């Protein structure tokens, strides 16, 4: 869809010429012209103005009544007065009205010092109160949710929080109840307001009515500093500001009120907003550990580094894995260590099946990459196997925005029902693991053989894609079977996604920096920048096998615990058991490491790192050190460089920026980048000239052959007479160690919920919420049943990536579900 055009006009405010964008709201135009008009309810992020607080009244020549500048689009030649007695009178009155029922408890209010109501009362208020009546007083503060406290005395009913719940996250749980002066913010029948984005209302509240339970009374505005950073708890990589007091992160806010439109639009999910607590927990490792007498014990850096340097003895037999929170630099240095120093080529950061280099290059082609804003202005957004809410939460909000405000047509193809289904024009369900077959059907349908489409939805989807407008964005998940990718690529070619700016593919990697790690060359079959590798090596699955077989004897684990995060838990248990040296960088001891690691280096948190990461749409963003390293923690790049030196490879990096420089020299399409450029809002490399240096992938047809061989035969149609259920897995937004470690988020910790169709639940005699057992050749997991209408019959969906009873213990496609 064409982006809105912007025409500049000029108007007069308080006698001064002001240039502004036509039809932008007067209050914004004034701000741009250095005239401040006070307001409460206006918040462009929330969409259309509501004009409720009346604080922004101004005089406009030619209009008898005062007008709300928050809702008045500017026109050329408009003449506006914001300083007349009439306006001042109204402003005084509004402040006076607001204070009638607002307790003046600023000295004990958590918002004090950063409170719009305080500032506006000071700036535009009467300065004295004419009100004698006692103010209303209520019990306060009260819990609105485990994360948010509400103080109803202070609420000025500005609509911000409820509009967020109703029009942005669309969970519609937070409401106004009652009417008039009795109106108050609440929920249905005392249910808590817990939803994945609920924390945003804290930032939206212009008074101290909604406060953060974890942050309340931890600091005063004059105690704290703000430090810009990137949240790397998921691939959305939202731009944040860390509230820092005494080298501790006490709060995470969106970077600035309007946020980074290219990334997060100024919103955060609750994992990102409250997960910072994991930075300062006791479980955090702050000293190097070495296994000694079967136990991991704190040791000196010297000893830890020496132990790690033992990698030298495993030349040719070392393998490495990198997890999502690692920076490009860290990954880059480790792949150098392995390839150049240890003559080992087994390294991977893709934990599902590997993808051929040709295909990977083709899928990464700059012209084919969609951007985040494209989601908002596309004609059609198609999700394939991706659940934004879990995979990259903030994109869920962006997609809702596009559908709600721009009329984007949303289509969803997935095995599991999606949180976005109610917003979708078309939802197609395929059996778990059936994406390759589905895409094949879709391709046929697109090729005009739509009658051959087994499913009317597929035909409808094909029609939407061919007739619904050219700007199509396909959002797909790294978890798609790689056998499906060649078809995906052919579909992209057929739809000419590469030829249009507003169209393209957007992959949601499983790891926060999944894209960056690959571009840094952390792949078995690709060097930095998708160059040909010195020598091809083993991928994740093969590494596990090789380790078990003794062909791989040392493992280097960069912020990943295979037992916790990778498929086939058993295989990894065996692999780590057999490996004689395991070097890990980790911030906490997860099970696998506790049991098997030889040496563990304390990893930096995202608030401590200095380095770069890559957003799924190719935007390089910079992590900056916001707080000092706790305990003895050292920078990751520094530790890796030191290990390399002791293992015989001098990488010649003495500072973080030097590592970045090396990376840019090694990755051709980063050639144009400098840290200065990517500071602030980051920079998309696909938009730089150097983008052309990405080795071209072979056309879809060429790559197809090789991969199509491995096309997993689509699962047979399910016969419900059979006892078992087809297994599908999902990774919840809450399935992350940071969530388990953050006290505030404990209530969200994902237990194993098995989603069942009502019919199956009935057949198996299982009630919603009942304790059940899931079994598969020998392995038994205990779980709780969640009966859901949307779940297709004969299917069970289970969570992986969770601490206990994770689905990654299961390897087969069918499970037995029974009451406990």
């Amino acid at each position, binding site marked *: 869809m064409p982006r809105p055009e912007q025409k500049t006009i000029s108007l007069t405010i308080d006698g001064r010429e002001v240039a502004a964008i036509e039809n932008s709201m007067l209050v914004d135009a004034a701000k741009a012209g250095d005239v401040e008009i006070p307001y409460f309810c206006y918040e462009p992020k929330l969409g259309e103005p509501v004009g409720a607080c009346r604080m922004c009244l101004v005089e406009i020549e030619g209009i008898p009544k005062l007008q709300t500048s928050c809702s008045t689009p500017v026109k050329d030649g408009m003449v506006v007065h914001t300083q007349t007695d009439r306006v001042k009178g109204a402003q005084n009155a509004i402040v006076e009205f607001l204070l009638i029922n607002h307790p003046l408890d600023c000295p004990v209010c958590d918002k004090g010092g950063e409170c719009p109501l305080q500032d506006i009362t000071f700036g535009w208020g009467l300065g004295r109160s004419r009100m004698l*009546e*006692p*103010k*209303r*007083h*209520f*019990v306060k503060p*009260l*819990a*609105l*949710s*485990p994360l948010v406290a509400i103080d*109803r005395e202070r609420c000025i009913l500005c609509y911000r929080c409820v509009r967020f719940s109703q029009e942005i996250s669309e*969970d*519609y*749980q*937070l*409401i*106004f*109840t*009652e*009417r008039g002066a*009795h109106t*108050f913010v*609440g*929920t*249905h*029948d*005392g*249910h*808590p*307001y*817990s*939803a994945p984005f609920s924390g945003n209302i804290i930032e939206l509240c212009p008074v101290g009515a909604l406060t953060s339970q974890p942050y309340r009374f931890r600091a005063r505005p004059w105690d704290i500093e703000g430090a810009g950073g990137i949240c790397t708890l998921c691939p959305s990589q939202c731009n944040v500001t860390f509230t820092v007091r005494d080298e501790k992160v006490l709060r995470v806010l969106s970077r600035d009120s309007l946020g980074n439109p290219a990334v997060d639009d100024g919103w955060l999910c609750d994992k990102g907003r409250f997960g910072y607590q994991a930075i300062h927990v006791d479980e955090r490792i702050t000293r190097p550990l070495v296994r000694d007498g079967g136990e991991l014990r704190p040791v000196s850096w010297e000893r830890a580094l020496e132990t790690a340097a033992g990698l030298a003895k495993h030349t040719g037999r070392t393998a490495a894995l990198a997890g999502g929170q690692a920076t490009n630099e860290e990954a880059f240095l480790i792949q150098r260590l392995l390839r150049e120093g240890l003559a080992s080529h087994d390294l991977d950061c893709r934990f599902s099946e590997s993808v051929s280099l040709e295909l990977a290059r083709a899928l990464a082609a700059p012209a084919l990459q969609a951007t985040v804003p494209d989601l908002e202005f596309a004609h059609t957004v198609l999700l394939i196997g991706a659940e934004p809410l879990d995979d990259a939460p903030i994109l869920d909000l962006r997609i809702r925005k596009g559908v709600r405000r721009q009329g984007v047509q949303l289509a969803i193809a997935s095995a599991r029902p999606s949180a976005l289904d*109610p917003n979708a024009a078309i939802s197609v369900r395929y059996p778990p693991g059936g994406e390759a077959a589905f895409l094949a059907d879709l391709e046929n349908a697109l090729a005009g053989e739509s009658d051959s489409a087994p499913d009317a939805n597929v035909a409808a989807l094909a029609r939407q894609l061919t007739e619904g407008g050219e700007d199509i964005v396909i959002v797909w998940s790294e978890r798609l079977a790689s056998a499906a990718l060649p078809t995906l690529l052919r579909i992209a070619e057929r739809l000419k996604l590469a030829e249009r700016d507003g169209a393209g593919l957007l992959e949601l990697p499983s790891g926060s920096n999944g894209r960056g790690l690959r571009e840094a060359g952390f792949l078995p079959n690709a060097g930095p920048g998708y160059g040909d590798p010195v020598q091809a090596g083993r991928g994740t699955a093969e590494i596990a096998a090789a380790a078990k077989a003794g062909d791989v004897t040392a493992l280097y684990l960069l912020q990943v615990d295979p037992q916790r995060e990778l498929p086939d838990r058993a295989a990894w248990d065996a692999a780590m058991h057999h490996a004689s040296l395991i070097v890990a960088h980790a911030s906490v001891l997860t099970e696998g490491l506790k049991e098997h690691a030889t040496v563990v280096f304390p990893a930096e948190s995202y608030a401590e790192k200095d380095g770069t990461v890559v957003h799924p749409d190719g935007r390089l963003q910079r992590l900056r050190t916001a707080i000092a390293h706790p305990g003895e923690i050292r920078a990751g790049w520094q530790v890796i460089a030191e290990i390399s030196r002791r293992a015989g490879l001098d990488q010649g990096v003495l500072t973080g920026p030097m590592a970045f420089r090396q990376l840019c020299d090694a990755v051709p399409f980063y050639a144009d980048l400098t840290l200065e450029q990517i500071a602030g809002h980051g920079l998309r490399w696909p938009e730089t000239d150097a983008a052309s240096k990405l080795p071209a992938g072979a056309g879809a047809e060429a790559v197809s052959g090789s991969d199509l061989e491995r096309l997993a035969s689509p699962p047979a149609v399910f016969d419900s007479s059979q006892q078992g259920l087809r297994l599908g897995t999902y990774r919840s937004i809450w399935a992350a160690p940071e969530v388990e470690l953050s006290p505030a988020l404990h*209530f969200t910790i994902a237990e194993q919920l098995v989603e069942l169709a*009502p019919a199956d639940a009935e057949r198996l005699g299982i009630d*919603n919420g009942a304790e059940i057992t899931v079994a598969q050749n020998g392995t038994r997991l205990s779980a709780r049943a969640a*009966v*859901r*209408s949307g779940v297709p019959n004969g299917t069970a969906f289970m969570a992986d990536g969770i601490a206990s009873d994770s689905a990654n213990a299961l390897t087969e496609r069918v499970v037995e579900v029974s009451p406990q």
Partner: protein
Amino acid sequence: MSPQSVPRFDHGSRVPGWDDAVDLTKPPATVPDPALTPVSDELRAGIEAAMAKYPDRHSAAIPALHLAQQEHGYCSPEAITEVAAVMRLTPAYLTSVATFYDMFEMERKPKNDVYVCTNISCSLRGGDEFYAAMLAAADGGTDVNVRSFECLGACDIAPMASVNGEFVGPLTTEDAGQIVADLAAGRPVLEHKQLRYRRCADPGVESAAGEEPQ
């Protein structure tokens, strides 16, 4: 004078839940899953019929709440959850709507509604006195829900009240007891004072005889 003793929620408005915290043991109230929310056939049919009348199903919210209130006696959390399940909305959406309107009751209430108008025209003619009398008359009785209401649009029979929707007036304080009695006996309430039989006051409408109540 302590803040608590300040009259804040008088004049007929329901006492709101300002002071209520949420119950953290409850799950968030999302759109109820139809598979887990039983709804009576009449209610479901009624709501679906209502939704069919409008270009946008949301318009059926008020009709649906009327139906649910009839069936459940008041807009109980369950009633609202059932409507939400049929209308595919969150219960909160409907709670927000229900609490805005005076005719939806959020607390369990007696069966019969007596809305006494205490707005200007009625109070000029003794509406407040009648309200007091009505409260007294209904006191002890369990099935009469007496509420003071704003202008009900029948100032020509001031002071007046709406008894289960039937407008009666002009009322005297004696009528209060009669209303309770009629309700108890299940007969038409104050039939000779029912608005439905009242002739137009305008002498100019040379009207044929309107039927009289017997």
